[in-house]
Every structure is written in structure tokens, then in C-alpha cells.
């Protein structure tokens, strides 16, 4: 970008065209009125081109005829005519033949001051000897009226010079304006979407003002204004606006806010603009020149601020802006010196440096924009990472918790098993050992076998219940199943009809040891029936109500008989002991051919059920 800028810059200053010396060349000018159709007869003075007629006829608004005469010996080929500019509008005649006429030769004048022209004049139009080129120029004293350099020569050379001039004066302007217009629009959109980025808005406003100002360079009519004065005043006002917006942009992009000074600046700029629009026609030229020079000098200020804040900021983007600001500042200082005549030059650098500033600032803003985007993206990545980490952490801690729970459950299970062994087999073993120690030397094998069998029964019960618990079945109903199955088969083998009725026990919440005690009591009771009762029918009923759990074992056997009293007593004793530990009430009622064992376990109901029923 910068390289191409420099290339164009060099191209702009390069054409130092040597005035082609034409044979017997003579240039003269004469004043006339707005409506003159032909050159005046008198009043011709010699001039040199380029000519600003206000140096000769100050404050003259109107038409000036320029006449260029030169000799051609026997013209055989066409010649090229290249005119750099005329200010503002005009008519061009070659040997009395009109070759160009601008659209509006009276106010509002066509604005042709920045339009180079090229004509190829055919040989037929040329005369042997003296040739006359007449140029009628309509102009206003305030805006440097007159005629720019006119070159006559070989068509190819003239065309090349013209094209070069056109590129510098118009093409370059149009393309830079297009670039800046798109940048400006882009940042306007960004600002509209994201009002917080106020620097974008000021950048856009500044560039719009600049575009307005530069419209002057490419406009060929005063549209949208009715007069040339209005157009010119508006152009100067755009410059004021540009300076204001540029200052604001610099302040905001450097993160500064100077509320009072900003208001003061805008008030002054508004007063200046109003003054411009109120200036009478005669003074417009001077006022414009005053404002332009003042604002050119003023516009050094924001550039100095840019350099100052940029260097102090220790931020790379602002360093870049500071460099751009410095270039612009140098250009403006140079232009001021040229404008005031301190430097002997007619080249103004600021129109090029303004483009550099526009592009540089846009680059910095875009860079900031993408940097913010990157920050958001990396924030997203970080967020994802931290979410992933948190998830893993959670997973690990859940797993740990699960393992802990598992260990806890296992420990509980082990404690339960220990209690079960201790309360059941352990107690029986101790009791049996004590019984055998006290017994005479000879113990009937039947008795010993009974001792061992009861041990085995208890072990089976423990194994069955802990196996059911391994399947996650803690409900009494499920724990009952193995015992029910085994006992039913045994009863069937003994031709005893067993009738089981197990109600809904879901609201019964007993601890595992309590469940086991209940099963032990049941097993003991059923075993007694099997061994001693000679019953034909057995009925087992488990049910629950608000009182608690009720277990009934009924049989139609002989009840307590003398020969079974001893063993039966031992069984009864252990059943009573277990019932006591359960906090239950055990009653045995044996009458009328029916023995009924009844066990009531109170407070075995879920607490909330109790509340529900009591309320």
C-alpha cells in the first residue's frame, strides 16, 4: 500500500514538462461580459500561462478570452492539444471552429477547474501560416480564475502527457475516495452494530467529511448547491468538520476524554461554519483562504496528540498510529510552509498523507477488532478447557464418592454378616458347647445331630439372606422366598398342606439383622411343626397394618406334647429371646386342635406412614 502510494506520489511530481517552443507563439487575454459570444476587439494584453487573471484584474467576475497564436508551415498531419485546466468553465475554438463547450458558462458555473483536456486537431483544421486557438473562460475572482498551461505538439506526446495529468488529477482521487468510502462504510457498520466502539464511529465520520471535501476535486457541477459560492463554502465547512472528527477520533482511539475542550472545539467549529455560510460574495475568497490555512495549521494538533499518546501508550497499535500521525504532521507542516510561501514549491503533500492516515488508522482499527475476536475465541477455548477439567474433576470425585459408598456398603454388609453370625451360629455354638460340657459322657447322637442341624439351618438362613441382599433385595418379601420355597417342599414331602399368605409388606422397614431375626423365628416355628406337631395343615400369614407387622403360624397338630416338651422348650426359648430383641410380642396359643404362634412387631412401619395415619 505504502509503496504504491509513493509510486503515485512520484508520478504526480514527475511531469516537469518543458514548455514546447512553438514558432512565433503568442498568448494574450482580454476581458469581456458574461454573455459575450465572440472575442472583444480591444483590450488585449500579453500574458504567460498559467494565468490567474486576478493578478491583473482583481475582483473581476466574468469572462476572459485567451488567444494563442502560432505559425505552422504547410500542415500535413494533425497536432495534439493538451490543456491542463481552465477555471471554471469555458469554450474552446480552433481557427474559428468550436472544439469544446462546457455545460454551464454562467452561474452556477460548470466546475472544470480540475479537468485536463486533450484534443487531436486534424490537419484540415490547421492553416498554413498563422493559427489561432481561442479559449473563452468564465470565472469568479474568489477562486483563482484563469487558464492553466496549454501544450501543443505531436499527438502521441500530448496524449501521454494528458493521460498522466488525468491520472493524477482525477483517477487517483476517485480511486482513493472509493477506498476511503468503503473503509468508512465498513467502520460505520461496525460502529452501528457495536456502539461501544466509539472510535470506529469517529473514524467513519472523519472519513465522510474528508470525502465531502474531496468531492471538490472530481465534481463537474455545483450540485447539490445552487451557486459556486455555496459549493466552495460547503467544501471549506467539510474541512472544518473533518478536523473536528479527526480530533475526536484521535482522542477516542487513544482512550482520552476531554469533555470541556471537546465542546469548546465543536462550538468554535460550528461558529466558523456559520460564519462561512454568512460570508458575502466579495469576501468569500479571503475568508476561505483564512479558514483553510487556519485549519491546516490546526490539523497539526490532533497529529501531535496522536504521536504523544501513541508513544506514551506502550501499545504497538498506537505506535503505528503515532507513526502515521507523524507522517501526516510532517506533511501538514510542509504544506503550511508552502502555503505561506516559506518553501518555494507548489506541491501539497497532505492529500497523500491523508490517505496514508486513513489506511493506517483503518489497519489499526481492524487489527484491534481481530485482536478482540481472537481474545473471545481463546476465551472460548479456555472456557471449554476449564469446563472439561471441571467435568473430569467432578467425574473423579463422583467416582471416589461412589467407591467410598461402595466401601461403606461393603463394610456395613460385613458388619451385618458378623452380627448375624454372632447372634445366630455363635450363640448356638456357645450354647451347644455349654450343654455338651454339662452333659454326661454319652450324648445321644440324635441330640448332637439336632444341635448341628440347627447350626446348619441358621447358616443357611444367613447365606440366603445375604445372597438376596447381594442382588439388592432387602425387602422382607424377597428375603422370605428361599425359606418359603424350602419349607413348602419339606411340608409337601411330609404330606403337610402349607398355605402361605404374604400381604403387602412394602411399608415394613426392618434392619437386616431384624429381618433375619424374624426369619429365624419363622424357621424355628415351622421346624417345630415339621418335627413335632403331626399336623396336616399349616397356615403362614404375614401382614402389616398401622400397628406393625403381624406374623401368624397356625397348624392343626397335637400342640405341645409331653415327649416333645424338652426340645420344644429349647426352641421356644430361642424364639422368645429373638422376639424380645425385636421388641416384638410373641404369643403361643394352643387349644382346640389348633396351635397359633403370633408375632407382633410394632413400630416397624415407616415413620411417614405413621404420621399420615395419625394426622
Amino acid at each position, binding site marked *: 500500500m505504502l509503496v504504491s502510494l509513493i509510486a503515485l506520489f512520484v508520478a504526480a511530481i514527475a511531469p516537469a514538462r518543458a514548455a514546447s517552443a512553438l514558432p512565433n507563439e503568442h498568448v494574450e487575454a482580454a476581458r469581456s461580459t458574461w454573455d459575450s459570444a465572440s472575442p472583444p476587439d480591444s483590450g488585449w494584453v500579453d500574458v504567460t500561462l498559467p494565468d490567474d487573471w486576478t493578478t491583473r484584474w482583481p475582483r473581476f467576475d466574468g469572462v476572459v478570452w485567451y488567444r494563442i497564436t502560432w505559425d505552422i508551415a504547410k500542415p500535413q498531419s494533425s497536432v495534439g492539444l493538451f490543456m491542463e485546466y481552465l477555471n471554471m468553465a469555458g469554450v474552446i475554438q480552433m481557427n474559428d471552429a468550436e472544439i469544446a463547450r462546457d455545460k454551464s458558462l454562467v452561474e452556477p458555473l460548470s466546475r472544470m477547474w480540475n479537468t485536463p483536456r486533450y484534443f487531436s486537431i486534424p490537419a484540415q483544421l490547421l492553416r498554413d501560416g498563422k493559427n489561432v486557438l481561442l479559449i473563452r473562460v468564465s470565472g469568479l475572482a474568489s477562486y483563482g480564475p484563469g487558464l492553466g498551461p496549454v501544450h501543443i505538439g505531436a499527438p502521441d506526446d500530448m496524449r501521454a502527457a494528458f493521460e498522466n495529468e488525468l491520472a493524477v488529477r482525477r483517477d487517483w482521487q476517485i480511486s482513493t475516495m472509493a477506498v476511503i468510502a468503503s473503509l468508512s462504510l465498513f467502520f460505520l457498520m461496525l460502529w452501528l452494530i457495536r456502539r461501544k466502539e466509539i472510535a470506529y464511529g469517529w473514524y467513519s465520520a472523519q472519513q465522510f467529511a474528508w470525502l465531502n471535501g474531496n468531492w471538490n476535486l472530481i465534481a463537474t457541477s455545483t450540485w447539490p448547491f445552487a451557486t459556486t459560492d455555496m459549493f466552495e463554502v460547503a467544501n471549506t465547512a467539510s474541512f472544518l468538520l473533518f478536523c473536528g472528527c479527526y480530533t475526536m477520533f484521535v482522542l477516542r482511539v487513544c482512550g482520552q476524554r476531554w469533555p470541556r475542550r471537546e465542546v469548546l472545539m465543536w462550538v468554535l467549529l460550528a461558529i466558523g461554519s456559520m460564519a462561512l455560510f454568512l460570508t458575502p460574495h466579495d469576501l468569500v475568497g479571503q475568508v476561505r483562504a483564512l479558514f483553510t490555512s487556519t485549519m491546516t495549521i490546526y490539523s497539526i494538533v490532533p497529529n501531535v496528540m496522536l504521536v504523544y499518546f501513541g508513544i506514551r501508550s506502550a501499545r504497538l497499535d498506537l505506535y503505528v498510529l503515532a507513526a502515521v500521525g507523524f507522517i501526516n504532521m510532517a506533511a501538514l507542516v510542509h504544506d503550511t510552509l508552502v502555503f505561506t510561501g516559506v518553501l518555494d514549491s507548489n506541491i501539497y503533500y497532505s492529500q497523500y498523507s491523508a490517505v496514508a492516515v486513513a489506511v493506517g488508522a483503518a489497519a489499526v482499527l481492524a487489527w484491534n477488532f481481530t485482536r478482540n475476536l481472537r481474545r473471545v475465541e481463546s476465551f472460548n477455548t479456555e472456557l471449554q478447557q476449564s469446563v472439561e477439567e471441571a467435568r473430569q474433576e467432578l467425574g473423579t470425585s463422583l467416582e471416589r464418592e461412589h467407591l467410598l459408598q461402595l466401601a461403606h456398603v461393603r463394610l456395613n454388609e460385613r458388619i451385618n454378616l458378623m452380627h448375624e453370625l454372632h447372634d445366630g451360629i455363635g450363640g448356638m455354638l456357645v450354647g451347644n458347647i455349654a450343654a455338651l460340657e454339662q452333659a454326661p459322657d454319652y450324648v445321644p447322637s440324635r441330640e448332637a445331630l439336632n444341635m448341628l442341624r440347627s447350626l446348619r439351618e441358621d447358616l443357611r438362613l444367613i447365606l440366603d439372606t445375604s445372597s438376596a441382599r447381594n442382588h439388592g433385595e432387602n425387602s422382607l418379601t424377597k428375603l422370605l422366598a428361599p425359606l*418359603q420355597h424350602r419349607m413348602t417342599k419339606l411340608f409337601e414331602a411330609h404330606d403337610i398342606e402349607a398355605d*402361605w399368605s404374604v400381604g403387602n409388606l412394602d411399608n415394613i422397614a426392618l434392619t437386616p439383622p431384624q429381618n433375619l431375626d424374624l426369619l429365624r423365628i419363622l424357621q424355628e416355628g415351622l421346624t417345630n411343626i415339621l418335627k413335632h406337631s403331626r399336623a396336616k395343615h399349616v397356615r403362614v400369614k404375614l401382614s402389616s397394618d398401622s400397628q406393625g407387622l403381624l406374623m401368624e403360624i397356625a397348624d392343626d397338630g397335637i400342640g405341645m406334647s409331653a415327649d416333645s416338651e424338652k426340645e420344644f422348650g429349647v426352641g421356644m426359648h430361642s424364639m422368645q429371646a429373638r422376639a424380645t430383641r425385636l421388641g416384638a410380642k410373641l404369643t403361643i396359643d394352643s387349644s382346640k386342635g389348633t396351635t397359633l404362634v403370633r408375632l407382633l412387631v410394632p413400630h416397624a412401619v415407616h415413620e411417614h406412614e405413621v404420621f399420615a395415619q395419625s394426622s
Partner: protein
Amino acid sequence: MSQEVLVVEDEPPMQARLLRILGSVGCAEHSVFCAATIAQAKTLASEHTFAAALIDLGLPDGNGIDLIGWLHSNNPTLPILVVSAWSIEEKIVDALRAGASGYLLKERDDLEIAMSLRTLSKGGVPIDPFIARQILGLLNEATKCSSGLLPGGAKPATGAPLSNREQSILLHVAQGMSNRKIADALGLSRWTIDTHIRHIYSKLSVNSRTQAVRAAHLHCLFR
């Protein structure tokens, strides 16, 4: 029982006990052949054609389940009973899957074992709540698998491993009901119940190609 029976049991007292119980159900002592090791059992099996085999699981020279598999593959129609102590459920189910057609629980009274043997000799099949529970557990996992995890949503070649009737019988057993009570409850004969249970067991075993496929299917899904 007049035919020859193979008993594989390494503990002499238990061997004697089994002999006694077999005798009590009418099995003459000379027709019972006892082996204490797998090697002996295989030798005996190659010399005789047994009508039934009782196999203990813990043998000095190997696992009884392997022997069951071997016997079953040699003679798929041979009734094989596992003799196990303290109802180690997984072992019994493994044995059923290896081809056993029933089981005896050592810790039960002689009377109960004799009853089981009598039932078996009449074509009955033993089943206990814990076995039913195990099989139902396997079934649940299998249906979970077949409904979700089989590739391409393909239905397993054998359909549901167990029929509705078989499932309902297992559920009744798991609740603690005896076969007779189940027969009453379902309005079936006890013989039908036994047939169903035999089917259930055979569905567990690996004695044919289709069953191997099904078992592999179940197997992959249990783990």
C-alpha cells in the same frame, strides 16, 4: 433305578452319604460307580454307559464344570446333576450352562436330597428361588442388550431367550412358591412346569450350534 450311575465326589464321607441316599431311592450299590478325580471319571465314562451322573464341583484335579462340559459334549442326553455345597449360585448356573440338567445341594437333609433324586428320576427338575433369580437377571440383561446394543438393531436370531410362560414360572419360583403351588396357580400340570424348567435350563446350555450362538449372545451381554 437299575441303571448305572456315576458319582464324582472326592470326599469319602460325602461319597458314602450319596451312596446311601441313592440306595434309599432304589439304586443298587453295584450299579453306582464312584470317582474321586476327573481323570477317574473320564476313564469310567469311557468304559460304561451311564444313565445319570452326579458331579461335585470342587475336585482335586480340576473343575467339575469342565467335566460336566466334557460329559455333555460326549453324550448330550446324559442327565447330569451338580452336587454343590451351600448353593453357590453362580457356580450352579455355570454348571447348568455347561450342560448340567439339575443340581443337588449338599447341605440339605438326606430326606430332601432323596426327594430331589426321586423327582429327578421321575423326570422332574429342581429349581430354587435363587436359581430363578439368577436366570431372570441374565434374561433382563439380555433383553436390555438386544433392545439397544446389538449392531444394526438386528433382532437376535433366537428371539427372546425365554418365553413369557417360562418367565412367569421363574417369577413364581423367585417368590418362593413350590412347583406344585405354581402348577395350581397357573393351571398347569406339574409335569408341564418341569418341562418348562428343563427348557429353560437347556436354553442356558451350550450343546448345539444355535444354542452356542445364543449363549455367546447372552455371554457377551452379561459381561
